[in-house]
């Protein structure tokens, strides 16, 4: 196993259709884990010195949104489930942003392009931009990124 560099980490996070397993904190303190589609806000930090915000959308009345509104602490795990196995775990702080339709559509189209392909991006972007959908940004506070877990030393 070796640690990923910053650039490797960013590349890994945006690789293919890896989903993020997002953990939020329930009211009783127990964890709640769900997969989410996401992208990195790559416009934000072109110097590549930091891992940019993780951006995804969800319904404002979903359990994860309710949890994040009450407690902004989240963890996110993205993993490659094929040998030699690699993963990135991000601990971060979430901030909910309620966008106007056009801005939300832009994000949902970008996210859909990643997971459903360019030809389906517009249709899925529109499908996922409905009443009650909110944007969530996660600012990473700690990142653990390891690659080639199964490799012999």
């Amino acid at each position, binding site marked *: 196993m070796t640690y990923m560099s910053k650039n490797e980490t960013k590349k890994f996070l945006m690789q293919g259709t890896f989903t993020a397993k997002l953990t939020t904190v329930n009211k009783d303190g127990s964890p709640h884990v769900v997969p989410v589609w996401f992208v990195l806000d790559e416009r*934000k930090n072109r110097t590549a010195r930091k891992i940019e915000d993780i951006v995804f959308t969800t319904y404002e009345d979903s359990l994860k949104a309710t949890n994040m*509104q009450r407690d*902004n*602490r989240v963890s996110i795990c993205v993993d490659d489930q094929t040998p030699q196995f690699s993963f990135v775990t991000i601990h971060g*702080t979430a*901030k*909910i*942003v*309620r*966008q*106007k339709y056009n*801005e939300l559509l832009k994000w949902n189209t970008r996210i859909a392009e990643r997971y459903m392909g360019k030809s389906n991006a517009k249709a899925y972007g529109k499908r996922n931009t409905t009443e009650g959908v909110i944007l969530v*940004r996660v*600012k990473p*506070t700690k990142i653990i990124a390891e690659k080639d877990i199964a490799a012999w030393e």
Partner: protein
Amino acid sequence: MKKIIDIAFPDLDDKNVRIELDDTLSPKTFKAILDNLPVEVSINKWGEELYTDRTTITVEQEDNAKTEVNELDVAYWPEGNALCLFYGPTPISKNGKILAYSPVNIIGKIVDSSNKHAILNQIKERAKVIIRESI
């Protein structure tokens, strides 16, 4: 130039927080805010920061934009097209510093510090606010 505006909280017996806008730090934002008043919007909480939903005020990050702010600073968050009121630590604050999520254009200050306990601490998530010129 300085200008007084009010943020009214209709859900809180129409209580007002008075803000002194100052054009020295973020002149474009100062103008854009005044051009767009009144603004009716819902408000959100992030630690001891109140921030509005996206408004019709659209300004880019200005040259003096910063992440570290002071207690009672009022700012515009370009990323969220939102107005923010900082009255204590945010979830990413460290070592007593009040940190915004990302750089904000500082536009002024809450005039009366007693508002922190009397009003700002009482605001509930999704409360409606009206931002308007002071009467």
